[in-house]
């Protein structure tokens, strides 16, 4: 188990290192730099002066080495776009993305798992309806879902159409801010959650249908355990493995989806920050965003693996499932 954790940790570090270095390099070799994108009315000398003062005229090697040296003790440089340390900007935005992702994950679980248990253990109209709904849900990717929900919100006024808090959000008390957030979060979270809930429903449905044919479920019924209890206590735990395995895959989906949703619903998250930084050629901010993203990704997959190991002893002992 310790060996397993160590290899995973090494992989996580490698992922963060490679991803952030690669984005830094790519942004550096991209045509145009931060100075070239500032104000059209700057003269060539002013531009050159700006470049020197920001350190953009240094060679890539010296730039990269000093960035790497800083990053080793958690100093990720300053953002050119916001003139603030990259670490403070990124951690604010990463928190926003995490809020969105966690709410979406909970929502998808709360919708998908019960429906999957239901459709996997019944037959007839109920199952057909759930199945049809989940094929429809699978076909609503976050881009389409968020556009549709924004349309719905703008038409009906049920939800605020965008943003994370109302514009007056600065002078609210803590409780008011939380209530405001609670009004803003459902729309983007739902757009993210719909396809995930549908996938979870399909997986859970197939898994529990297979598990309820196992002899020990029939045996529990024969002992006189009632149907609901036999499904929930005997069949369900066994069916969890493929479902939990999917949570590890879902972290990546969550990330990709949240980028789109953040852009459509103006959610101030990591994805939009990275997009803005890329467009402005804000080198260190891009690398900081990429490093944070990779860290989240590695942490997410590791967490999913640990949960899987907790549930299934075969994974824990390193045996191939």
């Amino acid at each position, binding site marked *: 188990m310790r060996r397993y954790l160590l290899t995973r940790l090494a992989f996580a570090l490698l*992922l963060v290192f*490679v*991803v952030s270095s690669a*984005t830094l390099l*790519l*942004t550096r*070799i*991209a*045509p*145009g730099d931060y100075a070239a994108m500032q104000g059209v009315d700057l003269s060539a000398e002013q531009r050159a002066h700006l470049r020197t003062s920001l350190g953009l005229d240094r060679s890539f090697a010296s730039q990269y080495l000093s960035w790497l040296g800083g990053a080793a003790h958690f100093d990720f440089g300053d953002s050119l776009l916001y003139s603030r340390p990259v670490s403070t900007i990124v951690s604010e935005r990463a928190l926003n993305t995490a809020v969105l992702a966690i709410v979406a994950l909970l929502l998808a679980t709360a919708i998908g798992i019960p429906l999957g248990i239901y459709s996997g253990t019944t037959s007839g109209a109920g199952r057909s309806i759930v199945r049809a709904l989940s*094929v*429809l849900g*699978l*076909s*609503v*990717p976050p*881009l*389409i879902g968020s*556009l*549709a929900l*924004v*349309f719905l*919100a*703008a*038409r009906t006024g049920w939800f605020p*159409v*965008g943003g994370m808090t109302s514009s007056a959000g600065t002078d609210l008390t803590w409780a008011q801010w939380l209530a405001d957030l609670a009004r803003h979060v459902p729309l983007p979270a739902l757009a993210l959650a719909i396809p995930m809930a549908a996938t979870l429903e*399909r997986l859970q449905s197939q898994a529990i249908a297979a598990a309820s044919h196992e002899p020990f479920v029939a045996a529990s019924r024969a002992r006189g355990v009632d149907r609901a209890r036999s499904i929930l206590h005997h069949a369900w735990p066994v069916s969890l493995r493929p479902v939990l395995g999917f949570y590890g895959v879902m972290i*990546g*989906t969550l*990330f*990709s989806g949240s*980028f*789109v949703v953040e*852009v*459509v619903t103006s959610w101030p998250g990591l*994805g939009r920050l*990275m*997009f803005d930084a*890329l*467009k402005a050629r804000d080198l260190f901010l*891009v690398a900081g965003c*990429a490093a944070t*993203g990779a860290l989240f*990704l590695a942490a997410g*997959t590791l967490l999913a693996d640990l949960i899987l190991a907790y549930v299934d002893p075969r994974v824990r002992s390193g045996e191939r499932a």
Partner: protein
Amino acid sequence: MIRRTGVFLALLTVFAVGAPLLAPYQAGEAFRGYLHAPPMRPHFDGLAPVVHPLVLADRLEQRFEPDRTRTLKMPWIERDTEAPVFLLGADDFGRDVLSRLLHGARTSIGLALFATLGAVLIGALAGAWAGYRGGWVDDAIMRVADFVLVLPVIYVVLVLRAVLPLVLPASTVFLLVSLIFVLVGWPFVAKGVRAIVAGESHREYVQAARSLGAGPIRILAVHLIPACGGHLLVQATLLLPAFILAEATLSFIGLGFPDPVASWGTMLAGAGNYNAVARFPWTLTPALAIFLVVLATNLLITRDARH
């Protein structure tokens, strides 16, 4: 199953190629007086469907009303250059949404098909080579594939596209974006192909071919890659909607095709403003088109999964 998937892909190709021929107007053809004109409802005059032309009733509210004293024939039968017919409404430049949707189908589906073809080709070659050669070649290719698979696709696409010059002509965008899609798409294909080729290459028919003197290229091309046919088709049906969506996302955020070019993503970019979305819902029709393509592939796949 293989046949149905193949038929679906072929139909989609035909649609992508043929759709612009059905469009009544050019993709960039703008009618100045008809910004955000609503869809006109056709009715029958005898046997021929006709519509009432729209008249601007309120310039401030951009409100149109049908002029019931006149009728217009369908634009496919007779084109009136003064009074255009908008069956799905007009966008913010007064361009026909239906025409742009049909022209955009060629751009969006065409790009996705091209990229899918590329990803399947590269994925099949890389996977087959890895599976057949084994050893360090196998290790190296599969490590790279695994690494690409870990990364969230849209971010890789975003970074690779954003570091290229932001403004490019449409044909360059087409090539570069499909190249980027191939880069992120090939590992999905390669993993399965590698597994199949590695498994099959120890079977008797492969050994028989080898003992008859067939070289590795012949064995791969004639025996092993055809064995992956089903897998390749399934992966193609999975990649296609993903690429359509990726193009829509890129164009939506302004990194895809430049504006006059019609693609489903550039059309949605105009609908990104929530005020416009609420007042002119017909500008969201490309979202519906994408939904239908994704739904069709999902129905195809879940149907196959049940059999």
